[in-house]
């Protein structure tokens, strides 16, 4: 049997990667909330966050934090352009939902290939934000980058909750999600809110990519697994609820981590998807349901 410190270590590992999945899942939730679309290009935003940061950092002209800021802004801009050039015309044509989802997949493939041709097929990374050895308490180890991941995610989730609850823009985005026609009658610029939603979602994906890259690598092909796992997390937590999606991310991270401990690495997806199936049968709206029901 495993001792308590090993079991706690798996908790720490699960929370760390769970926060990343949570950020990706929130991205899904933000766009779904605003437009009813499941955006399968979400993983691409994670990839772009890492790639943009690497490319700007590699030039040697900017400190890492500035590269991260530039990367988030650039990815958010791509999210906004994606909405304006692809999603908006399709929405105007009242395109079927599954066609919209296919469009997001198409955009994902195009962006991946663009990165492949512009940056290459190599893997890239950049240094952790705070270099140094990990902290140790008893037998439990906490890596410095992990602290960055957890802290940044908690702060972002808090800001997001505040955005939806206390700001005019957040309330307007929520109104668009509930009923875009009525929102429009109330002089809420629906299309503008959608642009904000896509930009926000892309920015969150980019942050996830920037936070995770120092603990692994980034490359043009990393997007799909993040899209799939993030989507699963969003379904478990509540696709229409950003906070729920974050909790879903944590659940998936912990499920994957403890699957490795109690079964083996090869079974972690079996366990995760079994739990997803359970949710689809028992609680199809996810743990926290939809934001618009609040």
């Amino acid at each position, binding site marked *: 049997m495993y001792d308590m410190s090993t079991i706690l270590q798996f908790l720490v590992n699960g929370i*760390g990667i769970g926060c*990343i999945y949570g950020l990706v899942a929130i991205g899904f939730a933000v766009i779904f909330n605003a437009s009813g679309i499941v955006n399968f290009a979400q993983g691409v935003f994670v990839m772009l966050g890492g790639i943009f940061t690497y490319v700007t950092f590699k030039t040697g002209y900017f400190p890492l934090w500035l590269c991260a800021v530039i990367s988030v802004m650039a990815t958010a801009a791509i999210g906004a352009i994606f909405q304006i050039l692809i999603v908006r015309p399709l929405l105007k044509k009242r395109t079927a939902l599954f066609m919209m989802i296919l469009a997001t997949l198409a955009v994902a493939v195009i962006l991946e290939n663009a990165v492949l041709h512009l940056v290459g*097929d190599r893997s890239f990374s950049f240094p952790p934000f705070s270099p140094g050895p*990990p902290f140790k308490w008893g037998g439990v180890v906490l890596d410095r980058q*992990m602290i960055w991941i957890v802290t940044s995610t908690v702060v972002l989730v808090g800001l997001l909750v505040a955005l939806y609850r206390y700001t005019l823009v957040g309330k307007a985005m929520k109104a668009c999600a509930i009923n875009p026609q009525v929102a429009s009658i109330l002089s809420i610029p629906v299309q503008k809110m959608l642009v904000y939603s896509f930009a926000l979602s892309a920015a969150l994906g980019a942050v996830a990519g920037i936070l995770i890259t*120092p603990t692994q690598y980034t490359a043009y092909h990393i997007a799909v697994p993040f899209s799939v796992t993030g989507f699963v997390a969003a379904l478990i937590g509540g696709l229409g609820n950003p906070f729920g999606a974050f909790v879903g991310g944590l659940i998936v991270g912990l499920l994957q981590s403890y699957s490795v401990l109690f079964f083996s*690495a*090869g079974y972690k997806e079996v366990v995760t998807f079994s739990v997803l199936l359970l949710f689809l049968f028992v609680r199809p709206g996810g743990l926290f349901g939809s934001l618009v029901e609040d």
Partner: protein
Amino acid sequence: MRKLLGATVAALLTCTAVHAQETYKVGSSVGLSGYIAFIDGPWKDGIALAADAINQNGGILGRKIEVVAEDMRSEPAEAVTVARKLINSDKVIALINGCSSAGNAAMAALVARAKIPMMLCSILPPKTEDHKWAFSYLPPPVFDVEIRYAHLQKVGKKKVGILYDATPYSGLQKRTAEELAAKYGIEIVGAEQFKPADADMTSYLTKLDAAGAQAIIKMGSGPATITAVKAIKQLGLSLPLLASTEDLDVVRGAAAALGDQFIFPGQRTQVLHLLPKGDASVKATSEFLTLWKAKYGDRDSTWAARGWDALQTVVVAIRKVNTVDGTKVLAAIEDNSSLGGASGDLQFSPDNHLGVRTNPYYLATMVNGKVELVQ
């Protein structure tokens, strides 16, 4: 006007026909996208470099070589579609395929029916009847397992944890490691299967560490190695990681995190600067690297060297029999003569289609950005 148009079309068709006659097409089913792209990309570039060098020296049998590379997207099903196109439409005289073992296995029967030699960056297809037309340039797993086990035995590390991926080659490496463990006095305390796209490996490493592993042996190449070594560092573990063959880009990323605790079986192309100068056995490697560096700079050439060797083998065989007839070329490849390749020494025979017969590896690490041999 009609006459002019007809003449133009006829002239174009004639030009096309002449062009088609001027080249021999060599097909290549490679994963230029998907999880294997990081290997197959350089492998394809190695083939192209060899074709350029051969064409500059007059080609073969009076014609130039044209390499037709098709992306099988790292998907076995796509490999079959690509094979059909290369065989039926392009009429290739040989196939020099990439490193997807599953993809090459999927198309093996098709290639055997077409009677075309198929040179592989992967292991041979699993069915014995498909071996006849297939030749592998991948060193058998026993070589990289043995060199790593020998090192562990030397430094007194007896308990190892294995990380392996789901590819057939990685599975073969794992089975070989299990079979050879007792011979080297090694106990495998755990084996965890990862996916190349895994975003985090801290849980795998925590478990292997808890099981008492004194070192990690990783099967399967690719950037996931960087994730594994970073997980070791994140967890503050003092475990060395002994990787499989790796691209120098991956080696750089891994060594930056783990220093000389990251060890890998180096290829001749990666350690050439450390080998005795003037050694006749490395002449082909030197010649290849000169051309490679002129075109690709410091990009790693490990897989490219094998692609280069694969095309050179086919060309040597064609020149020997003075025809591109598949059956005769096959016999020429199998004639048991040794080819001093850029990637190492190669030798095929009718009963052995694994070209690498002696251990081609040099155990290496990277210190201050430079590859060094592990003493």
